């Protein structure tokens, strides 16, 4: 659990610091009867959706960090009173995972292209980037599915070793998160394919999808690194 404690300490540190810069030391009882115009906010604006996404990413980070902690704790060797309890047999990762990783990187680049093109008003290019981002993600999922099949064929069953089980669970959960992202992406993409220009809502939708794509790429790189090295 050391890892998760460090992660939570970091998150908590950021959170407390962030609260502090927002005036946590104000003596609000002394400043009565005045309104200095600071710290004014309103209803659900574009900022709310962006902050909502970041809070959600913090939740997902906690989720994956806990899984990674469980992974490390489960694999750590134990020899108790001379009895060797070490049962971790590393998975031979199929080579297709490298292709999948490249696809996910390409998807992230595609989404980045889409959002920066929308920012510069190049709608056609944005549409292209959007499609590239989505289809790369779909291809990634198909590739992961293939990797599962190859592992099954090679006899790496979920029940036979914790390393196999963790492989399926971690890749599966990462895939599910991507699938959820594709749902949102699908709505934004269909809105873009119907119009000639992007509304503010569509622009934001694309921008948030891009953040999510980058985030899931980072999660995948961490998971992939973990799976490769253990």
């Amino acid at each position: 659990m050391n890892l998760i404690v460090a992660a939570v300490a970091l998150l908590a540190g950021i959170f407390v610091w962030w609260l502090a810069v927002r005036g946590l030391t104000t003596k609000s009882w002394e400043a009565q009867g005045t309104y200095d115009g600071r710290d004014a906010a309103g209803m659900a604006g574009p900022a709310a959706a962006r902050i909502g996404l970041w809070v959600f990413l913090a939740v997902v980070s906690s989720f994956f960090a806990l899984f990674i902690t469980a992974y490390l704790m489960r694999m750590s060797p134990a020899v108790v009173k001379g009895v060797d309890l070490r049962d971790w047999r590393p998975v031979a990762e199929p080579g297709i995972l490298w292709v999948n990783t490249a696809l996910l990187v390409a998807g992230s680049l595609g989404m980045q292209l889409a959002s920066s093109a929308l920012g510069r008003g190049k709608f056609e290019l944005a549409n292209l980037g959007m499609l590239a981002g989505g289809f790369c993600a779909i291809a990634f999922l198909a590739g992961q599915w293939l990797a599962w099949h190859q592992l099954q064929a090679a006899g790496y069953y979920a029940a036979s070793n914790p390393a196999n089980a963790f492989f399926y669970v971690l890749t599966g959960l990462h895939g599910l998160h991507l699938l959820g992202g594709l749902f949102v992406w699908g709505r934004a993409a269909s809105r873009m394919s119907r119009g000639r220009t992007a509304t503010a809502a569509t622009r934001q939708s694309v921008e948030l999808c891009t953040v999510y794509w980058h985030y899931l790429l980072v999660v995948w790189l961490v998971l992939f690194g973990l799976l490769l090295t253990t």
Partner: protein
Amino acid sequence: MSYVAIADQHAHLHDPQTFLTKYVWSQDHKVIAIQYMVTAMAIGLVAIGLSMMMRLQLGFPGTFHFINPSSYYQFVTMHGMIMVVYLLTALFLGGFGNYLIPLMCGSRDMVFPYLNMVSYWVYLLAVLVLVASFFVPGGPTGAGWTLYPPQAILAGTPGADWGITLMLVSLAIFIVGFTMGGLNYVVTVLQARCRGMTLMRLPLSVWGIFMATVLALLAFPALLVSAIMMILDNHLGTSFFMPAIMSLGDQTGHKGGSPLLFQHLFWFFGHPEVYIVALPAFGIVSDLISVNARRHIFGYRMMVWAIVAIGVLSFVVWAHHMYVSGMNPYFGFFFATTTLIIAIPTALKVYNWVLTLWRGDVHLTVPMLFAIGFVFTFINGGLTGLFLGNVTVDVPLSDTYFVVAHFHMVMGVSPVLVVCGAIYHWYPKMTGRMTNETLGKLHFWFTFFGTYAIFLPMHYLGILGLPRRYFAMGDTYFIPDSVQSMNAAISVAALFVAASQLIFLFNLAWSLKHGKPAGGNPWRATTLEWQTPETPPRHGNWGPELPVVYRWAYEYGAPGYKDDFVPQNQPPDGRIPATHGQANHG
């Protein structure tokens, strides 16, 4: 940020038209809040019923033949899980969080109203899945509310067929639903406060609910992770948690799994969960005490800092639930230390409540009685927590009634007293009518003395060494016969307390039609929810214009004003704010 452009989107809030969109598929935070409250209280009544069954067995063993060891464990498990997760978490965050955050922050609604509505329906689904487990073959799980493997999923534990799976699925659904709601609560507090409402002008209720939501968002994933892995162990035969083990004479296919890993994950959720329940209670009690003592809360800044500090510290104390699991003594020492450190900000809050009362103009209204009852009970439960936080004291006491008494005092009775007080306090805003005060006082005294009659003797039973979790005590030489009479007395007290909750329910139902009209601000409170143009507030809360806040939430007894309180939205020159005209639409 250009708040002017986005501050007032009243036109964008499509007003609900039909009965169905107004009360069922509603996106109005107030309706969703009441849906959460009613559902949570309904499932809470089931949990009270289960605890009565347990008490019948413990008080009068052998009398009730429909209670056997299996069903007893099922009652224990379901009582615990329902009370902690489906009642208290849902009621404080889903119920009061939904109702109070937009009103106290001066916004029209949550920032993602649709997500908010879905959150409730997903919560309801989780409750239904949980209830369904009573009707499947084998019944609900009897693994204890901590669901420790390996026993939770082995044949022989009640509910190993279906119950445990339904429990884990229900928890997973609950977490998904809560995440939707939790995103709303956090982002609304951060982004949708009205003009002038700085973080340090927020009422402490909002601070407590806000911090509890942050904890829940970070801690519930630990429960989700363990639920997923346990479902896989159970159904795919993986060995995350399951060691090599014999079950009913047969070797299972599992090997090498770590039950201790589950305990770490579970308590990494489980301890913050205590504060997920306690922090909203802390916040709400601060407001109840301040309003009814007609005095500003003592040490507002420290109260906020303490809430934040408790929230952060609550993530590094989880292993104090696992002292008996056989851990490295240095590990235990570390967690004993952090556990005792967390007592500092908590004690600070208690001092501040007491100092707020000191020389205050104390009005012993029903909510105030519950608030003071909470401070009493929380001190009692907290002090025994200091005992149990020490490894050497915890080890002999861990499996006795002492622990049952401790956690029921600190996270059972205390938060429930706050829930009752808070409902009496905000009922006038929700319905436009006051509750009956005599019935309320009766309810308070019966509940307060009744729960002490239940849980104080349990401390003593625990020190005697009476083991918890036992269906029946049998012949144990160190347990005198008089223990049985005390157990019977506790059961009578428990039945009495459960029955006296009917007064509460009757009061709530009766006052809906026959209560005294409340007016907009019956408690003469400063916070924004009491300054709405209509009571109960309509969709959109504030009429045409959002309020503007000029001061903190605790301006009581300030010199130079006509009343002894100054609403947060009253401008400094004494003008009557636009939304101050009170009308009653009860």
